[in-house]
C-alpha cells in the first residue's frame, strides 16, 4: 500500500495500478476541466483573482490529499464544497485581521483609518464615498429589515442571536437580510455604475 502522502508524487507516479492513484488521476482531470468555472465561482467569494486562484489550487490539493477516501464520490461537487469552505475560512480570517487593525488604529483620525485599511490612495477616496452611499442605502430599508441587516452584516451577529433579540423566527431574520442585501446591491449598482 502506498504510504506516500505527497499529492504531486501520487499524481506523477503511474506505475501503481491501485485504486488510489486512479482516483488521483481522475481528480486531476476533473480539476483541470472545472478550474475556469471554479475560479469564476470563487471570484464571487473573494476580493481578487489572485485569491480565487489560490483557493482553487488549495482545494485541489486538499482533494488530492484525501484521494483514498473519495472512491465513487462526485469529485466536482467535493471540489466546489472544499473551495467554498476555504473561502469561508479566508473571509473569517480577514474579519479577524480587520478587527485587530481597527483596535490598533483606534488612536488615528477616521480618514487615516480608512486610508490604512486599503492599499492605495485612490481606493481610500472611493471608500469615503462608499461609506456615505452605504449609509444612504441602509436608510432606505424598512426598520426591521434594516435592523436585521445591520446586526448581521456590520455587527457580525448570527441569525439565532438576532432572531432572539427581535422576537422573530430565524428564517424571518434570513428573509430580512436577503431582502436588504438584494435591495442595497441593486441600488448600489444604480448609483455606482462605472464606465
Amino acid at each position, binding site marked *: 500500500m502506498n504510504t506516500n502522502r505527497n499529492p504531486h508524487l501520487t499524481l506523477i507516479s503511474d506505475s501503481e495500478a491501485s485504486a488510489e492513484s486512479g482516483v488521483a488521476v481522475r481528480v486531476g482531470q476533473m480539476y483541470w476541466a472545472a478550474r475556469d468555472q471554479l475560479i469564476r465561482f470563487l471570484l464571487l467569494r473573494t476580493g481578487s483573482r489572485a485569491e480565487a486562484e489560490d483557493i482553487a489550487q488549495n482545494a485541489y490539493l486538499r482533494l488530492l490529499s484525501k484521494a483514498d477516501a473519495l472512491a465513487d464520490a462526485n469529485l466536482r461537487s467535493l471540489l466546489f464544497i472544499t473551495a467554498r469552505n476555504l473561502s469561508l475560512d479566508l473571509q473569517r480570517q480577514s474579519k479577524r485581521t480587520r478587527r485587530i487593525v481597527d483596535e490598533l488604529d483606534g488612536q488615528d483620525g477616521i480618514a487615516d*483609518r480608512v486610508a490604512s485599511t486599503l492599499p492605495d490612495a485612490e481606493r481610500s477616496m472611493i471608500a469615503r464615498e462608499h461609506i456615505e452611499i452605504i449609509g444612504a442605502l441602509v*436608510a432606505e430599508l424598512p*426598520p426591521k429589515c434594516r435592523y436585521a441587516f*445591520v446586526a448581521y452584516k456590520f455587527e457580525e451577529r448570527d441569525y439565532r442571536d438576532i432572531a432572539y433579540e427581535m422576537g422573530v423566527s430565524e428564517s424571518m431574520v434570513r428573509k430580512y437580510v*436577503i431582502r436588504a442585501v*438584494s435591495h*442595497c446591491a441593486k441600488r448600489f449598482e444604480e448609483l455606482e455604475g462605472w*464606465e
Partner: protein
Amino acid sequence: MIVGPSDRLRQIAAAHMLALEDPEADEDRILAAVAWIEESEEHYQLAREISRFSQICERLPRDLAPEAAPTSANDNRQSWRWSPARVASSLAALIPISLAFLVFQMDPFSRPSDQVTLEYFTDLGESRVITLPDNSRVTLGAGSGLRVNYDAAVRRIALTSGEAFFDVAQNKDLPLIVETGDGDVTALGTAFNVHHAPGSTTVTLIHGRVKVETNQGENGPVAYLRPNTQVDIQRQGGLSKVRAVDGNATLAWRNGRYRYDDTPLATIISDLRRYYRKPILLASPSLNDMRFTGVVNLQGGDIEQWLMGLHNLGGVDVSVRDDMVVISPQARPLEE
C-alpha cells in the same frame, strides 16, 4: 419596497450568496447555490452584484459602519444612529441620511432628514460616470471635483474645478443648479458641458435649455443658451457673447481627446494638467496667448508626444524632464 420580476431573481441570488457564507449550510444547500449561479449568465451577474456590495460592506472599518439602535424588538419606532459628528468632522462631508424624493419608498416610521450631500473626485487622467440619486448622469473629467447637495426644493451641484458633462434627469418641479464658482447654470432636463479654463468657465449646451448667470445672479448679466451654443462666465465678472459651436466637438474629451480651434496655450495646458501626471510649467506669461488649432489625444504617451511636437512648431522650447515639462519661449525669433 416595490418588488419587480428581476428583483425576485435578485433576491434568489441573494439567498444563495448568503447560504455560501453561512457556516451552518449543509453540502446540498451549497451545491444548490453553486448550480443556480452557474445556470445562466443572468444568474451569475446578479450574484456578482450581490458579491460586489457585500465585499464593500465588509471592507468598511467597524466604527464607520451603520449602527443599529433598537429599543424593544417589537417596537416599530426604531431610530438609526449614523454617528454623524465623528465622521463629518473627519471627512468634512455631511453623511446622507435620506433623500427627499426617496421618502415615498421608505417606511413611515423611519425619520429621514431632508438633505443629502455627496462628494466625488477623479484622479489625474481618470474620468468617470456618476449616476446621481435622481438618475441624472455626470461624466466627471480628470482631476475634477464635484459636490452634490440635494434637498426638497432644489438639486445643487458644485463643480469647483475641472470639467464635467451633465445629463440632467427631467424634473420640472425640482430645478438643478450647477455652481461653477464663477457663476451658476440652472437646468431642467438638459445636457450640457461645464469647462473651467484660466480666467473663465465655459458652459456649452447640447440639448434642452439652461440659464447661465454670474455670481451677481439676477442683478448681473444673464444668458439663455440654445442647443449648440456656449458662453464664458468671466472670472472678473460678466458674460461673454453667446456663440454658436459644435456641441459634440466640445464633448470630444469624453472620447479621450480635445479639439482646439484657435485656443490659447494657457487653456490647453490647464486641460492637459488634469490628464498628465507630471507638472507642466509655462515659463513665461507671453506664451499664454499662443494659439493652437488641432486635436490633442489624452492618453499619457500622446500628451507627451504632443508637447514634444510643440517644440517643432517653432516659437517655443519644450523640455521634457523626468520630473516635469517646461515650456519656454524660444531664444531666437520665429521663422516663417
